[in-house]
């Protein structure tokens, strides 16, 4: 079933993509093949493959993880997504600590381990990258104020 749904989605992508590609037109051109041909070629092949996927044998059907595990994976994904959003705003140390604590809990760390890991990774990696390796990381507004 998953294969059918994905195949349908990809077929839609390929049709929509070709439709969008119709407007790719070079204002003036010196070459016989413009910016349109390659994407259309790829999308057409993608459409064919998508149909093949939908019609394909059922022997390769996907086995998803049990719902309880899937829920945890979804939650993990959301945590990482929120981390990505807040990385710059909260600064590396705070954002990392906040991300590590729940993720560590997912991987069966105790509360104590999770908090220690969060603070440790936040501060430790900041010192390693920002101070020692010269890879600039965001400090976050709150820390800027504290540091003056």
């Amino acid at each position: 079933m998953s294969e059918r749904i994905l195949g349908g989605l990809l077929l839609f992508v390929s049709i929509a993509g070709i439709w969008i590609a119709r407007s790719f037109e070079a204002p003036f051109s010196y070459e016989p093949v413009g910016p349109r041909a390659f994407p259309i070629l790829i999308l057409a092949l993608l459409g064919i493959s998508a149909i093949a996927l939908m019609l394909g044998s059922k022997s390769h059907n996907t086995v998803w993880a049990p719902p309880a595990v899937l829920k945890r994976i979804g939650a993990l994904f959301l945590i990482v997504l929120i981390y990505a959003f807040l990385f710059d705003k909260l600064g590396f140390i705070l954002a990392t600590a906040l991300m590590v604590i729940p993720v560590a809990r997912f991987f069966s760390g105790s509360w104590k381990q999770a908090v220690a890991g969060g603070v440790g990774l936040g501060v430790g990696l900041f010192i390693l990258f920002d101070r020692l390796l010269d890879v600039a990381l965001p400090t976050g507004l709150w820390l800027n104020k504290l540091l003056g």
Partner: protein
Amino acid sequence: MESTFALLMQGFAVAGAPENLMIALIGCFLGTIVGLLPGLGPINGVAILLPIAFAMKLPPESALILLCSVYAGCEYGGRISAILLNVPGDAGAVMTTLDGYPMAKKGLAGPALSMSAMASFCGALVATVGIVLFAPLLAEWAIAFGPAEYFVLMVLALCCLGGLVGDSLPKAAIACLVGLLLSTVGIDSNSGVYRYTFDMLHLQDGIPFIVIVIGLFAVSEVMLMLQQVHSGTEPMAITGRLMFNMKEFMLAKWTMVRCSLAGFFIGVLPGAGATIASAMCYASERRMAGKDHQFGEGDVRGVAAPEAANNASANGSLVPMLTLGVPGSGTTAVMMGALTLYNITPGPTLFQDQPVIVWGLIASLFIANVMLLALNIPLIRVFVKFLSIPNWLLVPGVAAISMVGVYAVHGNTFDLVLGTLIGGAGYLLRVMNFPIAPFILGFVLGDMMEQNLRRALSISNGEIGVLFSSPIAIGLWIAAAAMLIGPRLLRFIETRRQRPAAA
């Protein structure tokens, strides 16, 4: 021949500079650790370190030395968890579990580890010599390729990878095509037309390579690790002697040589790679051993064969990437992306234009492997300690370091969020058994493929026939079709033959 030697010496001068030696040592150490951690393999290690090396403003040759030594180190690390935990640290080490774990159970963990380190060294050494001998020849031959031949060559590379990996042809094809499609996002360099940017400023220059790589090989990896939580088995203790003895060495020495040579040639072929090389060599050594063997119950040849083969093929797979600019595996595709970050285009001209980088890289492979052998035998107990890093610390650590890498390159939130979303999609696709290597290869090759296609058709004034005009191009088309159909045909015949036997 003499000039090759002179160039190699020049390479040693680059790789032997104190800071580059230091970088190689760090890379070897990190690589071994990444390799031994189940779930993280060479592609993850290279992917995560690539943006950091770039952000540290390492010069291109040093960055490549770092990535190559990490790559080499991972191939050594995979065997440690295979032998002590019965869990392969990376895909190439799957076969090593078959005899490695039984040896550890018999109390022979030390000899199994040292023998496999020796085999790894042998494989890597043979393959690096192979690179020195064959790469310049191949580069010289490929310099005659025109845009049409190049285009077909890239089609061949994608077909090879698509034909060999994964169980379903439509899935492999979709992975390739989506990779190619995503590579068209951004401003078209020939005409200035915006393609699939949806008016988003950050997409004008296309989807950054690092964002794709981190999404697929770090974010989705973290999600997969939650799915496959290993029931915390304790690693076997290393008791007794660490070194293999003379008898074991004599038993395995020809195995190592044979598997190293075979592994190198399998590695050079696009698509095949370490997993296939180690499986093939293990099977053929087992067959050649005759009656008097203990394969499957802890034979030293059973750890020597796959390790020699997988290291040789890992190094061998650098050949098509360096000489043709067409990587044959996921990891080398990521490495090629690293080169393009530095505005270096791999391909036949690389050997003429950037001898410092090419030969520095090759020399660093020699140095890295000597370091790895030296690190892996006496310090094995140190590495084993890393097996007990708990997942609750490792997984969030990987997530944080990956984000550092993405942030370091452009410093914007958009890239971080895009990488995470790609990672989520990557997780779904990986669970659905979509192979990831063809996707990354498609993304890396997409732009070059389009440029070469357009150039070829410009030369011929739009005549499609140019793609089939030269004997080289026709040969490549035939090879591509054979690679796409061949493996499936063989498997089909195999199952047909087995069915009556089973009945």
